[in-house]
């Protein structure tokens, strides 16, 4: 069975690398993008199975990414947002835009893995 392709948009290279390692260890194919412009370009060409994105990113924020994905690309693929600014306003706006989940930093890689798996299963098995 072909591994699910995940796009990890995170500007902190060390954290991105750590999460990638953890997700790959559980059978996902992870591509890392370090800024919003790259992410936008990448998903416009070919959509991954799910996206994990930091909210605060250079050029293109995570919220804008959700908006672009849902309204411009008309895609419903799972998108999970990660942010250090986990105030109510941010979380609500993320969910309003159509994000599937929201995780506050510091992130537990194991927790992220479970959430990603659950969202992918929910999306692809229903």
């Amino acid at each position, binding site marked *: 069975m072909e591994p699910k392709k995940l796009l990890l948009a995170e500007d*902190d290279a*060390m*954290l991105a*690398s*750590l999460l990638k*390692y953890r997700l790959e260890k559980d059978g996902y194919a992870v591509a890392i993008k370090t800024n919003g412009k790259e992410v936008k370009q990448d998903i416009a060409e070919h959509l991954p199975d799910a996206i994990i994105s930091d909210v605060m990113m250079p050029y293109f924020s995570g919220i804008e990414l959700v908006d672009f994905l849902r309204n411009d690309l008309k895609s419903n693929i799972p998108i999970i947002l990660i942010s250090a600014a986990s105030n109510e306003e941010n979380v609500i706006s993320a969910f309003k835009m159509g994000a599937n989940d929201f995780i506050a*930093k*510091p992130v*537990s890689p194991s927790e992220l893995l479970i959430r990603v798996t659950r969202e992918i299963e929910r999306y692809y098995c229903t």
Partner: protein
Amino acid sequence: MYLSSKTYQLPFLISSPKIHTDLLWDLTLLFVVLAGLYFFFIFFFKNRSATLFKKRKSKRAELAPIISNFLFHSPEDPKTEQREYVELKITIREYLSDKYFRKVLADILFDLQKDVAGATQERLYNLYVELGLHHDAYQKLSNWRWNTVSKGILELSQMKVTDAFHFISKFINDKRGVVRKQAEIAIISLKDEGINHLLDNTKYAISEWQQLRLIEALSSLKDYRPPKFKTWLISHNKDVVLFSLRLIKHFNQNEAAASITELVKHKNDQVKIAAISCIKDFNFNEANSVLKKVFWNCSAMVKVQILDTIGAIGDEGDLMFLNEIGKLESNFSVVNKAHAAINTISPDSILPTENIVEDLVAPITKSESGLYDVEFLETEVEYSEVVVKSEKTIETKEIEVEEIEVFNLVEKKEPKAKEETEEPIEAPDFKIQEMERELNKTLNFSLGLIDATALGKGEDESKETQEDYAQMSKEQRVKFVDTLESVGDKRETQLLEFIMEHEEDAELRFRAFNTLKSVGKKPEQAVEIVSKTITPSVEPTAKLEPEPLKLDGILPEESIFYDLYAYASDMNSKEILIQEIISIGDERDIPFLVQLQQTETDIIKTLVDKALETITKAISEKPLDDVLDNSVAEVAVDNAIDEIDFSALQTLVEEPETKPNTNTDSNGGLIPLELCFLYDELGILYDENNKKEDLGLNFELSKEFEVMVKSNNYSLQNE
């Protein structure tokens, strides 16, 4: 002219200096070289930092998978991964010998621990120690640079190296502020008992911001069980006490009531305010009495806090105290807060009076039954009293007219009520009528409708009331005394004296005594002035709240030297000030001097004694006319003397002689002790034999008191 001639005589000042061209070229060359060097260094260091950044980035990229591998390695992983793990371990050991590599690795782990949580974070901490990176941090602690030491402390605390606790705890009393603060936070984060260590050992002040950071650090600890912070309320470091109070509040440790209440008496205002805030937050009702006791000796800021707390936790029993503050306190914000507190305890007791047009005030409506209950009348009286007070300050004539109307309304209702009520008025009505009569009298008096002669007319009524009082049950008497306490005035003097002499219940006697003292002061300010200048004051608060420093109704703060003395930093200045008091001081400085006697050093005490002696001597030598040399004081004295019922006072003095066995049942023929105090308060003289006979005690009077009694006696003789 002079200048112009000089200008032409000194041409070298306006001509350019002669410099050799070679020198100019040399200077040009020098500056070009310097500029070249400057740009060279800029490019050199920029390139160097860019190279280092790139190098670090590549190192981080290189190390990222290794760290990830270490963090997520599991013994259950497949063989290939196990082999990879072993190889990485060997590689990293080789790298670890390089100092730069260790630094980068420590930085990576330090940055990463902020972004990860849970089991991964725990593994990260372990990896940091396993790789021996904490040794580098230990080395930083011994560095002479404060920033390096601080960084080392931060690294060790963030990476949860608990073994570093003892190394870091040495820095909590470091003279470098940044290091000290970092160490404080570190020891709290590393171990649960860190806070105990900090509070036990810190010698420096803990700023408010630092306190908040420390509380935040404590709150972030997992499964933290805070110690009983009341233990540190006895600390000698006031900042520790303050911090403990804040912690007590934060962790809701409300079992420290006694200690917190005691801290209200602390000499430091910050501690006082923090303790009062705790009392308010925890609703320590039992601290109310202490708050009231310390109130008069506090600064305005503390007074406001106390009143705020009394407003929050107090009850109707505190209204009398708050009303007293409204009358005696001069500070606007304190008075305002007292009024706010009154309104909090008893809503709408004090209504707005500023810019209120009296014509728009609706008249009092008659109740359907035509009878008034006591509470209703009390409210009306309070209202009218408030209006009177405020209006008196603006324009007296207007008030009289308006208040007559209010009074008439109250008076007119009585017969109408009787006409309309067909049923005979029974026992409870006696009380109501009695109250109404008392209240009407109070109103009349406060409105100025009753003069001194009118008071005389009320003697018959007073006798009737005394008889009625004697027939009352105990409950009725208690209520009656309650009413007298709240609305009584000078006209109740006889009745109150009657109660003091004939009442069997000691508590009621004492309350009557207190009320008598308070009514002696209440209505006119003139009495206050007289009591201040001539007689020992009949000031209610002075006795209700024992205040050693408030002598003769005068506070130490009233001395003109009080503020100056507070700012005197050295002994010489203090001595000079006291010398000044000796030369120009008067009776208003006595309380201040007495305060100094209690608090100051021996040298100052000697001077203070001298000052007291001089002032006392000066007062005793000064004739009364000199004492009251200003017209205001004279008028005040006249008014006050008019109001003193001398016959009644004389009766009071003579009574024990003429009726020696009046109180034989309860007091064995002696007058009540409270009355003796009252005699002393009023400055009534009686000979030594009588004193001994009456009280069975021989009090020694202070010199000042004797002087005041003499002055009073002199005024009585004049009269």
